């Protein structure tokens, strides 16, 4: 867990830049794309891991875990059947909410020319054309990618929220009982 904290401590975008610099120049866009994904996941896992760990620490004190132990289930079975399912709704929610973050990260890299290069399209590198005010003045439609990035990010947030509402067993249970 200390390792997680160390990974979290490093400012994400700069590490991204540094790691991106380590990727050879002669990669084509597809390879660069996968390299970006790997780099993004390399800095992205720590936060979720820490929260899941915390949830597990609290879940294992639940009485049904003790009961499951009392019924002779092995530790692995208890983890898989009784602990992980309870972290699932949060995981799905967190994944949903982090997708926009990665989209933004990729766009950011492409925008400054480190991500996907020209023959391939990405909202980021399309937007990099709109970096000068003169161009926007004569061709305002090149700002459209920004609008789509915005829309996608908002959509994922809304979906993530809705998913959590319908997946969370505790919220559901409270409505029907007591």
């Amino acid at each position, binding site marked *: 867990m200390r390792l997680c904290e160390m990974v979290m401590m490093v400012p994400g975008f700069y590490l991204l830049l540094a790691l991106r610099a380590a990727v050879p120049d002669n990669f084509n866009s597809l390879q660069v794309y996968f390299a970006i994904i790997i780099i993004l996941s390399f800095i992205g896992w720590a936060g979720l891991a820490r929260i899941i760990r915390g949830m597990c620490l609290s879940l294992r004190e639940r009485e*049904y875990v*003790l009961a499951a132990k009392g*019924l*002779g*289930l*092995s530790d692995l079975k208890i983890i898989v*059947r009784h602990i992980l399912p309870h972290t699932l709704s949060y995981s799905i929610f967190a994944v949903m909410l982090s997708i926009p973050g990665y989209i933004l990260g990729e766009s950011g890299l492409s925008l400054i020319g480190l991500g996907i290069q020209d023959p391939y399209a990405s909202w980021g590198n399309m937007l990099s054309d709109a970096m000068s005010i003169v161009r926007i003045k004569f061709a305002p439609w090149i700002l459209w990618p920004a609008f789509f990035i915005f829309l996608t990010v908002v959509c994922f947030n809304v979906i993530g929220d809705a998913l959590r509402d319908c997946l969370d067993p505790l919220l559901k249970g409270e409505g029907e009982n007591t």
Partner: protein
Amino acid sequence: MSSNLLVVENLTVAVAQKKIVSAANLEVPFLSVTALVGGSGSGKTTLGLAILKLLPVGLNVQQGRIWFDGRDISGFFEEKMRLLRGKEIGMVFQEPLYAFNPVFSIGDQIAEVLRVHTSLNLRQRRLRILELLNLVGLPDPKRAAANYPHQLSGGMRQRAMIAQAIAAGPKLLIADEPTSNLDVTLQARIMELFRKLKDELKLSILLITHDLGMVSHMADRVAVMTEGKIVEQGMVKDVLKDPQHLYTRTLMETIEV
């Protein structure tokens, strides 16, 4: 020794230096209902958990032996204990709502026990679950099996919990205050159920409770516990007729027996 299913000898459980259970001796004869009576915090639950080696982190068994069915289980490691739990010693917990996982149906959770401890296939397991739920007196076993814990009433949950505890056919049932969250009529019915199961399934029961009234109706033997010590032990009628220890007398004064 031979007439006892469970013998606890000189068992001491402590957290750091503070003794929660000190030098407890307890016997549960075959096919008997033995009650362990004591006030809150007297260590009776801890003793029950210690038998199954389910003590929370920080609590340690300092000394003592536990004999179950002629075997000394005090030296058993996790793996061997796992075969014992559920299969030979069933446990009924105080609050069945928390003892069930809220995201699985009752049937699923009973099936889990059967899967671990028996070699029944899927269909046989299903039949067995319905059989068990019927045995514990749930009116509509099929529906109960499909229900989630929060959909059942308190009494039904407790019955489902008992069904789960006896699923793998244990010889000993440890019931930790099985009725303290139920109203009086339900308590009586659950107790009736325990009696019935005891006769039908040849169970021995260790009943952990604070209710002497229930003990006098239910139990054959009683052990009285206070401040971690078992102060008096014997047949129910002897103990209740002529209590030797001051604490037993105090307990008896608080209720009409």
